[in-house]
């Protein structure tokens, strides 16, 4: 049993493990102590001097981030003293901060703005010219650095030292001339750069990808799980439902990822935007001409074709591991259990290194639900084992192939080539988000799928931890359905047409 201490926080008794700082305890108790430099995923720097709290019986205010809770301590976070201290700490932070808010991407989620509203609201006494520093510096391929906006909280420097262990950033010069930056002739090279944008409490680091795209107050964020690899980082997806556009993906604190995520994972919103995406179903009409079709027509087309063959012999499933466990279950329930399809193949990137790991988060298995697919295969009584069986489809002799295609383009470098070779086969029904299908002449049937941010379901990560997708955005394409819904529609069609 670990030791605990009990102390008073704003008059309320709080029991925490020994060694817990007041800041951590307050966070656990949902007591807001304003702070800039403290970050739960980094070491304590104690430089912003913002998190001042009053400990009864001590002459000076103390910083909560470096104050270990001890038995009987009486901590108060909002006395007149601390309020004045917070207000002045903010004033000190702001005197040399440029009034860039109109052109700053951080505006709307900026610590300075938030705290001005909660602890500030004063008239600035700064009447002298501000200190000017270099702006819009190129410090890495995903980053833009503005040293003038920087409040020198040193979070980025600590991130570079403690998380990526690259130490690419430093604070140079002294006093109010100090600027954060890379060492001469170097840039930030690693693939966790955009985390610096997230941890930067102000707009000093901004993301090149998101730069000037949208103001954050127009965006809605919904929790999701990153589909980029088998780590399954908890993320927030930011989109503007009114215009059906997604803008960015940011990490959310989670068991799998701590506080961070990789830059690759941040690209996972791009394929969801309309311009990159399969917008309508494709199906052949009565004359056999392939054109854009309504969802119902496309289902009818597929349903009638399925009815015309012997499923056990002539139907093959080609399934990628980027969809939810629920989808696999309904897919196999229908095709394997009900129709008796025997030819089920796994679709994976050829030559992938499943065991590769970059040491931090990114894994070589770029499929979010490899484990979920294996479980579903096992449950359906099919042979499991992670293997790429893409080539087996061509020689399977199936007349109808249902291709549940991978969702995230960057995880499948050979996806376009594979789509090409698949469309050469007889009748392939693509269940996909890939926009390139509309331009392929040989595609005979396609159904637009929902993206990971638009559906409910479960991903099971490499460690077997299930992560639920529970808060879907509305699908950016009208006819987008998830696999479960497509299967249900097929079932319904078969019922309506007297086949069970």
């Amino acid at each position: 049993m670990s030791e605990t201490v009990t102390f008073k926080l704003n008059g309320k008794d709080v029991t925490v493990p020994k060694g817990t700082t007041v800041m951590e305890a307050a966070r656990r108790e949902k007591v807001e102590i304003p702070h800039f430099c403290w970050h739960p995923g980094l070491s304590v720097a104690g430089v912003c001097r913002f998190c001042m709290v009053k400990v009864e019986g001590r002459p000076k205010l103390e910083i909560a981030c470096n104050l270990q809770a001890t038995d009987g301590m009486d901590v108060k976070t909002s006395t007149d003293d601390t309020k004045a201290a917070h207000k002045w700490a903010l004033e000190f932070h702001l005197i040399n901060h440029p009034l860039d808010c109109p052109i700053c991407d951080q505006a709307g989620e900026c610590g300075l703005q938030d705290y001005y509203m909660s602890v500030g609201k004063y008239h600035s006494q700064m009447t002298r010219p501000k200190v000017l520093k270099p702006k819009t510096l190129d410090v890495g391929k995903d980053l833009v650095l503005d040293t003038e906006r920087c409040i020198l909280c040193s979070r980025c420097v600590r991130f570079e030292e403690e998380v990526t262990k690259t130490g690419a950033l430093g604070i140079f010069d002294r006093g109010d001339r100090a600027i954060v930056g890379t060492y001469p002739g170097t840039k930030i090279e690693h693939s966790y750069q955009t985390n610096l944008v997230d941890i930067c409490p102000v707009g000093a680091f901004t993301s090149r990808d998101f730069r000037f795209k949208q103001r954050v107050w127009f965006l809605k964020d919904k929790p999701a799980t990153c589909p980029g690899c088998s780590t399954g980082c908890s993320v927030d997806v930011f989109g503007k439902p009114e215009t059906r556009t997604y803008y960015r993906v940011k990490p959310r604190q989670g068991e799998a990822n701590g506080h961070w995520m990789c830059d690759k994972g941040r690209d996972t919103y791009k394929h969801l935007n309309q311009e990159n995406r399969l917008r309508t179903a494709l199906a052949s009409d009565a004359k056999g001409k392939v054109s854009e079709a309504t969802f119902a027509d496309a289902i009818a087309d597929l349903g009638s074709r399925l009815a015309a063959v012997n499923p056990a012999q002539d139907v093959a499933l080609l399934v990628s591991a980027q969809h939810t466990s629920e989808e696999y279950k309904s897919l196999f329930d229908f095709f394997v259990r009900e129709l008796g399809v025997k030819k089920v193949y796994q679709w994976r990137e050829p030559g992938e290194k499943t065991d590769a790991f970059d040491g931090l988060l990114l894994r070589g298995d770029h499929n979010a639900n490899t484990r979920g697919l294996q479980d579903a295969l096992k449950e359906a009584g099919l042979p499991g084992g992670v293997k790429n069986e893409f080539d087996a489809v061509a020689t399977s002799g199936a007349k109808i192939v249902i291709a549940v295609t991978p969702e995230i383009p960057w995880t499948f470098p050979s996806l376009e080539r594979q789509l090409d070779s698949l469309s050469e086969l007889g009748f392939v029904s693509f269940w996909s988000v890939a926009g390139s299908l509309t331009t392929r002449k040989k595609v005979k049937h396609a159904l637009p799928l929902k993206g990971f941010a638009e559906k409910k379901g479960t991903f099971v990560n490499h460690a077997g931890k299930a992560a639920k997708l529970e808060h879907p955005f509305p699908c950016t394409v009208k006819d987008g359905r998830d696999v479960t819904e497509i299967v249900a529609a097929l079932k319904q069609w078969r019922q309506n047409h007297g086949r069970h």
Partner: protein
Amino acid sequence: MGDTLNKVKITTAFEGKPNARALKTYVDNGGYTALKKAFSMQPAQIIDEVKAAGLRGRGGAGFPTGMKWGFVPKDDKGPKYIVCNNDEGEPGTFKDRYIAECNPHMLIEGMIIAGFAIGANKGYIYTRFEFFEEIRWLEIAIKEAYDAGFLGDNILGSGFKFHLDHYTGAGAYICGEETGLLSSLEGKKGQPKLKPPFPAVSGYLHRPTVVNNTETLATVPFIINNGAAAHKAIGTEKSPGTKLFCISGRVKRPGVYELPLGYPFEKLLNEDAGGMLPGYTLKACIPGGSSAPILTPEELKGLTLDYEAITAKGSMLGSGAIMIIDNTMSMVELLKVTVDFYHHESCGQCTPCREGTGWLANIMGGIAAGEGKKDDIERMNEISARMGGRTICALSDAAAMPTMSIVKKFGAEIADYIERGIRA
């Protein structure tokens, strides 16, 4: 009650002796005898002796030295370190360079004894690089001490191992702060570390470390040789011993004076330093380096130079740098130079100090350039009040205290300057 007028020489005992800094002179005049005596004692005994002597840190804060040594964990098997803070950067102070230049062996002996007391086998002397002469003589002295067997693996056959190195800093004021010094010594950017943990537990390379001022360490051999009582007999009850006072400004004989603590200020100014130069009168005095609040002639009347008496007047003894401000000096310029200095030297780590010193310098720059506003004085007062006691180290306070005191005591002169746009 000790003697506050008896001018015992401790750290300046060799003043006037030919080739005073040589090892031979030092040994001939009773040098390194304290070391032999120390080896015959237990380390804890030495710490108790220093505690009993009431020796207080001479760097500025006046923290009891024996207590500081006592904080080092005794059961820690090491390595532990003793570091001499010879980074004398406080404006107006020039006492440590006197010791290191004229009497380096006393410092080395003090360091070996301190190392023996706390169980450190490695010592560093950290000096700012501007002190070329000092560095030269220190290095010669260290070599002499090695050659004579006072440093090395088995000092004087006692079995005690102590190595001493000299380290040159780049001259930053902040590296005079003990954790800033340790950061610099570790090869990092010289900026203070967050406390706790304190250096006595986790200092240089995260090992227990004691950082003492040069003058403090140089006093140790005297205490060991003559006993705590002899040290206690000098100075006042709470501030025993002697102190090097650096008096500067328009006085007849500026310089370093070793005087017992509790010595009357007027006696120092008028007798030892020979009084003000003809034609100049005393306008104010900064009694402890530029970080100390300024004192007016009225406050200086009857002032004795010890920690308690000066604190009672609202200032501090600090490093013992007594800066005499005469009637020709402008308080606007004085304040501008002071805040410019702290603006330049702030490490930029903590926000109140980084922005506060810059803001003060910014305002003073405006006032000096004739762009001052009436509420600038009130604003400076408020800024300094909010800077103090809010940062990792004391630099912020060091900038805030003199500003507040000058603004308070000479506000009228600054207001006049602001109104006229020029000096009266």
